[in-house]
């Protein structure tokens, strides 16, 4: 006689569970197949692993993920469009014993406020910036941002992005890695389980760099936006692997030796 699910569960061991202390479970209002909740969950898992949810202040930008702030069980501020790194600078300078993170999208950090991030990195401010890069303005319904791939059709580039008219997409992780104040810069992705596990390691190293007062740490996380890319949800990860990760190379661009040894 086959076992029921409850009988089977008693013989098995729980090997995975959601980070219930740092992530507030329940329905969120993102579209089906969105990559941003996965990125939030990765960050929540590391926060729970380090036990810092009581000691962390999150600064969010403007985008779809602003609605996800209710998911995280920590203190948070919503900054003006693109200005989250400046708000985080003020928070960290006044409260240097707290962990400060900003979570921003590509329309927020790259299109609107790249100067804020570049100057914070140049000053070597000791906080962590997470960029959720889905290469469109998801909240407005899929318009072009500064990181949209060349040839990609959006609502504001109906013939595809043209490099002669709109320029080339900005590789933010490589750009910030060149600055002296940056301690850690990396780019991860959430299109497959393997990429999620690698991204989790990058998030851990970035927060360890902040804990050890090494300077500015930055992780860019490529996320899916099937609604903004006008495709089916299950096609988006494959599209991302075929096109997006070819231009936005995954990997670490600047790792301090102290972090490499600790992680």
């Amino acid at each position, binding site marked *: 006689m086959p076992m029921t699910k409850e009988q089977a569960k008693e*013989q098995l061991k729980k090997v995975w*569970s959601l980070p219930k202390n740092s992530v507030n479970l329940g329905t969120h209002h993102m579209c089906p197949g*969105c990559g941003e909740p996965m990125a939030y969950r990765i960050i929540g898992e590391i926060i729970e692993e380090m036990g810092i949810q009581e000691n962390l202040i999150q600064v969010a930008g403007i985008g779809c993920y602003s609605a996800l702030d209710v998911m995280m069980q920590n203190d948070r501020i919503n900054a003006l469009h693109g200005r989250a790194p400046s708000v985080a600078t003020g928070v960290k300078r006044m409260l240097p014993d707290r962990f400060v993170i900003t979570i921003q999208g590509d329309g927020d950090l790259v299109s609107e406020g790249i100067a804020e991030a570049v100057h914070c990195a140049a000053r070597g401010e000791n906080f962590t910036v997470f960029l959720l890069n889905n290469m469109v303005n998801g909240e407005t319904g899929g318009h072009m941002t500064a990181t949209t791939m060349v040839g990609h059709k959006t609502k504001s580039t109906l013939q595809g992005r043209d490099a002669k008219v709109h320029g080339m997409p900005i590789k933010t992780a490589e750009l910030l890695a060149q600055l002296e104040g940056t301690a850690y810069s990396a780019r991860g992705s*959430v299109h497959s*389980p393997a990429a999620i596990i690698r991204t989790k390691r990058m998030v851990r190293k970035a927060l360890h760099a902040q804990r050890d007062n090494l300077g500015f740490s930055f992780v860019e996380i490529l996320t899916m936006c099937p609604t903004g890319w006008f495709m089916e949800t299950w096609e988006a990860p494959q599209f991302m692997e075929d096109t997006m990760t070819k231009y936005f190379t995954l990997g670490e661009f600047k790792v301090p030796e102290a972090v490499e040894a600790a992680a």
Partner: protein
Amino acid sequence: MPTKAIGTVDLDIEICKGCELCIKVCPVNVLEMSREFNTIGFRYPILLDGCTGCEMCALICPDFCFTAIYRNIPNKRAAEIQ
């Protein structure tokens, strides 16, 4: 002789938005979409026999439907979350 992995998942179908990412990512193809709808109007995955508890679906799920994974071969983290 290596032990065969046996596993199961806790699945909260009421918060599923039917994106089918877990169906594509499952290496043993034991998840399939239902023909019914949940209360918010989406089709949801159903677990068939033969799950190995590999955690892939839980890692990719954007709606946190997979709340826990059980397996007969424990990993490093199993001792912490019991």
